């Protein structure tokens, strides 16, 4: 079986091309016949179990985007063996923005003791302000950003070490 993510979910499937226009697709125990009637750049006419679909597709760094009648899906490779979707962030004391944004305020400095839920950084994306709060109580060990910086999901803006956890020197 292959695994990919469709938006935020992991899907297991099997797909085999036959002569370049027929695709045999096994998904959730079902088997589906796909025939490509026509394919142009970013636009494809396909029959899925004899039902016609017009699919628009485009790719970028994040994966392949697919459009069908007003519904868009992002299909991505699943990295690692058991699927967490990459956008999910564990609550490990690393403060990161949920979307590309600009830092508008930093409300804590290294060495501060912070409470769970305390606001640490304010970011702004497209006029909307988002306040990033500590996911747990602890001590701020690092502030890795500055006001005005453009930041991306995954960038660790502030690190919080939980109360009572010994710094392992790493």
């Amino acid at each position: 079986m292959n695994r990919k993510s469709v938006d935020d979910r992991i899907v297991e499937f099997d797909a085999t091309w036959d002569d370049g226009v027929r695709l045999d697709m096994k998904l959730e125990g079902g088997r589906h016949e796909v025939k490509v009637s026509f394919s142009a750049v970013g636009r494809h006419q396909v029959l899925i179990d004899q039902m016609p679909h017009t699919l628009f597709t485009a790719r970028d760094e994040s994966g392949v985007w697919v459009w069908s009648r007003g519904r868009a899906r992002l299909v991505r490779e699943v990295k690692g063996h058991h699927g967490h979707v990459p956008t999910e962030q564990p609550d490990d004391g690393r403060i990161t923005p949920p979307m590309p944004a600009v830092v508008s305020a930093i409300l804590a400095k290294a060495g501060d003791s912070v409470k769970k839920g305390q606001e640490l950084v304010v970011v702004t994306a497209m006029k909307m302000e988002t306040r990033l709060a500590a996911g747990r109580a602890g001590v701020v060990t690092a502030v890795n950003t500055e006001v005005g910086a453009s930041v991306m999901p995954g960038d660790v803006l502030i690190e919080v070490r939980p109360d009572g956890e010994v710094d392992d020197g790493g």
Partner: protein
Amino acid sequence: MFDKILVANRGEIAVRVMRTLREMGIASVAVYSDADKGALHVQCADQAVHIGDSEPASSYLNIGKLVDAAIETGAQAIHPGYGFLSENPEFADAVTKAGLVFIGPTSDAMARLGDKTNARKMMLQSGVPVIPGMSDPEADPARLAEAADKTGYPVLVKAASGGGGKGMRVVEHPEDLAKAARIAAGEAGAAFGNDAIYIEKYLDRPRHVEFQILADHHGNIVHLFERECSIQRRHQKIIEETPSPGIDADLRKRMGDAAISAARAAGYTNAGTVEFLVDRESNFYFLEVNTRLQVEHPITEMCLGLDLVRLQVQIAAGAPLPFSQGDVCPRGHAIECRIYAEDPVSGFMPSPGKVVAAGTPQGPGVRYDSGIFAGADVPVQYDPIMGKLIVYAHDRDTAIARMVRALEECVVLGVRTSIEFMIDLLKSEPFGHGDTHTGFIEDHMSGWVPDRDSDLWALVGDAVERSAHNAAVGVPKGSVAGDDAFSPWKRLGRWDLGGRGG
């Protein structure tokens, strides 16, 4: 009439204004920031001036640079669009002082209406009903609490100068008031440079119904009927329609008269919008006047056969209104859906990025005012609106079906959008019944998730795209392309959909 007009805005609204200027034979000047070098509005203008870096404060909010750009290019007037400086009296003032024409109301009228507590007082004096609440802004938490108790919970904490839901908080319980007031004041200060707030009664599930007005410099004022804009998320509209399914001829007449009284009281000129809330008992209350063109102005244009931007330009040039109230007769039904780069799955969080595919809805009764194209950036610095899709039909049911059809054709890939959410909303039973109110999304759409029956076609699309891509870059049959297919020279063995080479 003017020969050249500078459009002090960006994105779809700048493009929309320039289209009318082109039709009127008036040259247009675009302004742009670093982030917008390749933006559509720059391509649509006759001339473009770079005005600064991507931060709004050093470009689209920079009065000095905008006025200088107009003078240097020989423009005689400035159209402000919506958002940015469009409702800033200092901007209107600076434009006028530089000997140019500001396409909008006078800075005095704007200042009178922009201060919301002052606007309330003005409306009370001219007999326009207002929402019960405070008449003056207040900073003292004790006095705010007193006013909230007197008004009765739930209350709405609002920025005295504001709009678009910024600096606005609903407070249900007295113990939450102080924090809400602090946040609202902070937001208001950051967004509008004025942290004054006040309190008014929070109305449960009202309709948002607004009236378009037009006033010339010769004392003529008309209203152009209503737009219902109840479908909102985060206090911002996403779907608007006209006529409102919730008001009858008598209420329409009384609200239209009130809108004209409001405009007259404020000494208003040019295009504006008087916003009202209508409660469950069909009482209406003045909300505010938007002293500019609204995002949703096209639905009025569709039902009346008018071009509001053309009328704005003509009024600014001193022409009298070409018609009177009795001549204005709306026909049919129009709906607008705003196409935002945002993710309805995560609370309508903005979704900036690069658009990698963009289709154009077409066919009978469809208008698409778009600011994007395949390859366009949706910058993180600005409002996430990418375009607005408008349909017109002879009645509401037909218009809804037409909008669903047009949204299905409105391909946008590369950023998340609300298109799928809006399709499901439009097809929902309560919307079909016209049971629309500002709590509609919370009441009827809060558990919404994208259609789960999409895995099959999504994986087929993925497979076909990879296959077509491989054919285009010359990967021989039987070789693999995973995400590494981005590097056309990289071939990893047998073609299989998991991307895990053979």
